[in-house]
């Protein structure tokens, strides 16, 4: 593996030696008001019509021949900066951009043109939405949620109604890599998927990759969601928060040492349990009263950064969140808690103006525990996954024609597949079982974003990944290629091919994100999942560059796909491998995105036409080829945000998609059983996902009303979820009524299809403040 790595580096770097006599300008692009690094900001050189994009830490580096240059520094949502420089020696220069929200509305049109960047870059299948826009969009129960915002994008299919689960380009829910400051988040939801673990106040930015994956990402087949927390305001102390229908938030940030060290800490908690506890207490004297179970969730985010000197910076960040469910009625007590904990330590180091190192150590843990006591017995089950990971990521920019990335990562996994314990206080019972598995994955990668000529740019690279389980090594090369060819000034055609490998697999047959879902490693029986994806498309600007139109066609081949036997026993099963079935899949489609990022009216229209298939030889013949439930043929999304004036903004989102698939029985059998204890009418299923539910359509409306109190700022955010009050399908079932026939025989008299919806129209309001 080391050998391949060295060869790759040599190949990528050998022809850049001649560039040594040129001059380099480098530095950071930051938010003027908070000092936060701006990721993905464009630093353009007017004379050469190229430039650099800041990396995840706001760093840029441009190497040019000596001379006089004009620079434009732009970032979506911020005012563009211009600069003129005479390059005679290496220069270190940081730029501070002002948020466009700080200016009058008529100045916003001077905003950075993100469409230009999309035309220029080789990257396909990547979408970013600013947190400012996310906070303006209508939400369910007043909770801002970045994962639900992702569901408004083309190519991303939402899971069950109201939940944060999502499917990207025909991939499964476990094929999405979710990173929080570089640490993997294994279960990114609260309350059985209705809310994500990401507190919108603490998130700086997030990116979604649906294809054309950069070589530094790996480990999942279908998407990467890279979420970065704010670093903390380095200029002044500030507090912000919100009071919502179900939760409240508070964030505190500020400098510890001016321009050297800053911190941020934020928390969120639901408070329904405070009312249920009080009510339970008031009813305590009633012996017949059954207490309402307690439920709450909370999140804590913290981050601190310290600038050692101009070449070294340290970051420490962490997340801790829990869902807690409890029921206490002596002598029976039941508890169920689950949650994630992540920790990240980062060191940014500049070896020189051209070579940037991001060294990251992460820890992540997800676990659930169900505990119960009844009289003298106690019972507990649980599962967990824990990772320790180290990543070394280098950005090397030898000249304006090349942006090289190389590095490697190592992750050590501990899978607590099934913990089980049963005890009694009199020692008459004492059982426990703990099936713990270990595995390690490692990868090295290298890529180069190469401006071959004015119209042609190629991003080529590879990732070599491996997974080790009990001495069994699975090594997989993952080539990554993307090309962009400009057809004129405002249009480019793009092409990409990527291969991804996935070594951990989600054990869930519920069709929903449940806390009891278990992650399982690649073993001798369970092979790594793999996917090849090709995509091609174009990006063009229309209406005076104000609107960006992107269209991508993709085809994806999926190998070693994991599913489950019928009636699989996944809970409390130490031999989970016996429950798996293995197969292949393929999906293809077209995604159209029309986006307007500037002016008073912003938003996008997305349309996806897609197909997805899976094939499992071990399924009942001839129904081995199936369409997964998230095979949605037509998907339309419209999102609009209109700034009525500086204090009022209106937003709407509209979703229409072909109904998702569900499994319906073709008939029923009358099952007698050895005793009359069993159910007698048993649905007979034949083919999985054989029935398409009615279409889904939802209109959400939002209004943000800003105030300017004596100090700070505040707003009221109104939302109407499902403003059309449409009964969208949640699930369908067959309801049977029985009747006695002559002779006393009881048989089904009528069977009817019943469609169940989850949410009618849901209004909500949240009060947000900042000072």
């Amino acid at each position: 593996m080391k050998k391949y790595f060295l060869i790759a580096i040599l190949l990528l770097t050998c022809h850049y030696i001649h560039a040594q006599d040129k001059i380099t300008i480098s530095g950071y692009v930051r938010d003027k008001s908070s000092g936060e690094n701006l990721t993905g900001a464009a630093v353009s050189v007017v004379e050469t019509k190229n430039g650099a994009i800041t990396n995840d830490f706001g760093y840029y580096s441009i190497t040019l021949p000596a001379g006089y240059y004009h620079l434009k520094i732009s970032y979506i949502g911020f005012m563009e900066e211009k600069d003129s420089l005479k390059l005679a020696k290496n220069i270190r220069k940081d730029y501070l951009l002002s948020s466009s929200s700080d200016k009058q509305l008529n100045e916003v049109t001077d905003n950075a043109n993100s469409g230009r960047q999309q035309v220029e870059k080789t990257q396909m299948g990547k979408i970013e939405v600013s947190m400012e826009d996310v906070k303006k969009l209508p939400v369910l129960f007043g909770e801002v949620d970045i994962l639900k915002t992702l569901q408004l994008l083309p190519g991303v299919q939402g899971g069950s109604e109201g939940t944060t689960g999502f499917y990207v380009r025909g991939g499964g829910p476990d094929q999405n890599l979710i990173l929080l400051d570089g640490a993997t988040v294994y279960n990114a939801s609260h309350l059985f998927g209705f809310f994500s673990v990401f507190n919108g106040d603490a998130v700086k930015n997030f990116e979604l990759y649906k294809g054309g994956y950069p070589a530094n990402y790996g480990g999942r087949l279908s998407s990467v969601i890279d979420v970065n927390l704010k670093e903390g305001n380095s200029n002044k102390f500030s507090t912000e928060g919100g009071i919502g229908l179900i939760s409240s938030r508070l964030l505190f940030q500020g400098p510890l040492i001016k321009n050297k060290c800053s911190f941020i800490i934020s928390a969120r908690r639901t408070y329904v349990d405070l009312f249920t506890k009080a009510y339970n207490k008031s009813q305590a004297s009633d012996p017949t009263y059954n207490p309402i179970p307690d439920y709450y969730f909370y999140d804590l985010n913290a981050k601190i950064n310290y600038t050692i000197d101009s070449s070294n910076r340290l970051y420490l960040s962490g997340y801790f969140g829990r869902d807690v469910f409890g029921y206490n009625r002596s002598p029976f007590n039941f508890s169920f808690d689950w949650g994630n904990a992540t920790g990240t330590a980062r060191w940014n180091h500049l070896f020189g103006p051209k070579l940037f190192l991001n060294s990251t150590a992460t820890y992540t843990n997800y676990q659930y525990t169900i505990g119960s006591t009844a009289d003298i017995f106690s019972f507990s089950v649980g599962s967990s996954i824990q990772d320790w990971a180290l990543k070394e990521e280098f950005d090397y920019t030898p000249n304006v024609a090349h942006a090289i990335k190389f590095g490697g990562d190592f992750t050590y996994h501990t899978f607590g597949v099934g913990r089980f314990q049963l005890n009694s206080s009199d020692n008459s019972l004492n059982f426990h079982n703990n099936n713990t598995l270990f595995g390690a994955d490692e990868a090295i990668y290298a890529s180069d974003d190469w401006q071959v000529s004015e119209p042609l740019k190629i991003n080529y690279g590879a990732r070599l990944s491996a997974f080790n389980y009990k001495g069994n090594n699975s090594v997989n090369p993952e080539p990554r290629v993307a090309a962009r060819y400009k057809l004129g000034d405002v249009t480019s055609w793009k092409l990409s091919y990527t291969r991804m490998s996935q070594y951990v697999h989600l054990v869930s047959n519920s069709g929903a994100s449940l806390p009891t879902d278990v992650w399982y490693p690649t073993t001798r029986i369970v092979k790594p999942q793999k996917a090849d994806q090709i995509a091609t498309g174009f990006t063009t600007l229309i209406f005076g560059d104000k609107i960006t139109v992107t269209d991508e066609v993709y085809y994806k081949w999926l190998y070693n796909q994991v599913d489950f036997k019928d009636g699989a026993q996944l809970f409390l099963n130490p031999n989970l491998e016996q429950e798996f079935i293995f197969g292949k899949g393929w999906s293809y489609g077209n995604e159209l995105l029309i986006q307007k990022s500037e002016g008073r009216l912003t938003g996008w229209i997305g349309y996806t036409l897609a197909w997805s298939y899976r094939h499992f030889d071990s399924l009942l013949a001839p129904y081995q080829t199936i369409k997964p439930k998230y095979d949605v043929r037509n998907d339309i999304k419209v999102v609009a945000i209109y700034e009525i004036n500086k204090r009022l903004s209106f937003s709407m989102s509209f979703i229409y998609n072909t109904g998702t698939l569900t499994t319906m029985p073709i008939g029923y059998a009358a099952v007698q059983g050895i005793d009359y204890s069993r159910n007698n009418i048993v649905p007979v299923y034949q083919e999985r996902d054989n029935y398409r539910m009615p279409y889904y359509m939802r209109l959400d409306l939002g209004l943000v009303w800003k105030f300017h109190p004596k100090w700070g700022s505040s707003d009221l955010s109104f939302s109407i979820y499902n403003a059309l009050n449409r009964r969208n399908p949640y699930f369908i079932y067959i309801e049977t009524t029985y009747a006695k026939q002559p002779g006393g025989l009881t048989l089904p008299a009528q069977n009817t299809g019943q469609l169940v919806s989850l949410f009618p129209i849901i209004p909500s309001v949240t009060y947000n403040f900042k000072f």
Partner: protein
Amino acid sequence: MKFKINTFIRFRQLLPPNPLKKPLRPSGTSPKNRGGVALLASIFFIGTMLIISSCRKLQQEIPLNLPPFKSQLAVECYLGNPDPTECALNNLVGVQAAISNTQDYFAPVNLNSLQVKGADVTVSYDSAGKTYTFRLDENLLINNCDTSNIKLFNYKYFNYSFSLDSVKIGTTYIHYPNITTKKRMFFHTGLVYTLSIDDHNGRVATSTTQWLDTVSINSISTTFSARDTTYNLIVKWNDASYNLDYYRMQARILNMDSASVVKRGHPLKQDVTFTDAINNGGELVIGGPYRYKQGDSIEVKMFHIRKEYYDYLRTVGAAVNSLGNPFGQPATIASNVTGGLGIFTVLPWTKKIIVIK
């Protein structure tokens, strides 16, 4: 109290001024606009409240166009050892089978369309170089089922069976004079049985199964919950082997009268299936809920079951539970019947009775 007042004052400072009482400080919006904002907010809430109040039900009937349906043979055929308290002969096997047609959800159903009548149903096994074949009789009811008032979904009803030398119906032993000792079906561990069904309408179903060891219950003890004066059972037995074994346990209160059934529910209080995966080869223990009262006479049956039957029960349970459950996973029934859908299995069992004093 003082703290609360101060907190309230501070909180008030965070709140925006009331737009209806006091003009907001100028910041680009005209007074006319501000009035519009207030009106807009009012309309927002009044409108949404009105819409909510007119909410329809979240469940509605819809037409379903299910995939084409073709009826198939639904088979349940069980080979069991007789209750030693009811039949003194050793190693005899009783057979009962329920053979029916699977049904279309949207077609009318009655007993005639449900049951398969006139089929040839045989069970055979090889022993000492000979093949013994037994034809099952149709409509030979061997249980305390009232044939004049058949309640298919309330009472046990099998339409084919092979009787033993004598069978207990209610409290009476019925002897079948036509069944000679030559027609007795025997069992021993490892013996393979074959089921064959021909309905004379072109449908033929076959299956095989193999006899298992019986397991004996070592002990049954109880624990007491003082809160509601109930007991639970702790049943212990030795695992049959170091292979993966499957069990089904049933516990039934024997001395419940009809008034008790109305009050306490069905006498069958526990019916669970499980494997020995957690403690393979050792003494197995199963507890249960607090459902028993002082004076109850409880019969505990322990079935040593085959994997096919365990999978069948599991998938039948999953299929039933998945309908109407958004978190459920629909399952096709794990069948070991070729040419049909269902189960053919042996059911070796033992029992113990405990009286809670």
